[in-house]
């Protein structure tokens, strides 16, 4: 009976250590949406997780790339289509729109006013905080090529690199929390 119990205990310990090795205290997010409210939500969760001492990886892809554009920067050598995309998409987080009730921009400026009144940090401030907290931003290279964005027109951010889906999957596989926003 005791022997049985000891065997079971050993088995359990082995399983637990295997599980512990499999996941880290890490959050991985796909940030897909380019809507101001969704980016804000992603950044609030990301900075909150950093306060929990969790490692945070944000994989920016498709429309979310607009949030990383620096309005003061531009890139040379773009094709006609790339220039068109650049013109039609919001240039930087300041120019993002609400996913609902945008009302040609009226809703977005209204919510920004309310956010200020309620002392909610703006998306720009959230990016600054995220940088200070060491949150990693990975930019999807494929999306960047599709939309014709170049690395040199992205914001100055301390931990930013360009990569592919394999990086996201490797990070996500080791994470306790995975989100798609």
């Amino acid at each position, binding site marked *: 009976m005791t022997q049985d119990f000891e065997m079971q205990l050993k088995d359990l310990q082995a399983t637990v250590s295997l599980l512990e090795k499999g996941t880290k205290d890490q959050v991985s997010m796909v940030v897909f949406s380019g809507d101001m409210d969704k980016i804000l939500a992603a950044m*609030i969760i990301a*900075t909150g997780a950093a306060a*929990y*001492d969790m490692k945070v990886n944000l994989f920016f892809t498709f429309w979310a790339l607009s949030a990383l554009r620096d309005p003061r920067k531009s890139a040379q050598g773009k094709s006609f289509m790339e220039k068109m995309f650049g013109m039609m998409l919001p240039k930087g987080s300041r120019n993002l729109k609400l996913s609902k009730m945008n009302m040609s921009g009226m809703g977005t400026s209204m919510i920004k006013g309310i956010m200020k009144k309620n*002392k*909610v940090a703006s998306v720009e401030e959230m990016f600054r905080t995220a940088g200070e907290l060491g949150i990693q931003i990975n930019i999807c290279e494929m999306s960047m090529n599709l939309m014709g964005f170049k690395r040199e027109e992205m914001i100055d951010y301390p931990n930013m690199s360009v990569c592919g889906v394999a990086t996201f999957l490797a990070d996500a596989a080791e994470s306790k929390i995975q989100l798609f926003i």
Partner: protein
Amino acid sequence: MTTEELKNLKSNLVVDARGTACPGPLLAAKKGIGEVNSGEVMEIYSSDEGTKNDIPKWCQKMTHEFLGIVEEDSYSRLFLKKA
């Protein structure tokens, strides 16, 4: 700890996060905790209602000891002891 005990408690660090909204107070707490030593008491001022639920949960995860809350007129004082 009772409210009276908390009021008499001498904090090693006061973090004033009044006037910030979620996740402001949490980030302020994270920043502040790096400045105190293990076993020392940190106090957080917050005017954000949600902080009263958030900080105890954060303490549990980070293994800090949550000591309690003292309510003031327009804000709360949250006490914790660093693990």
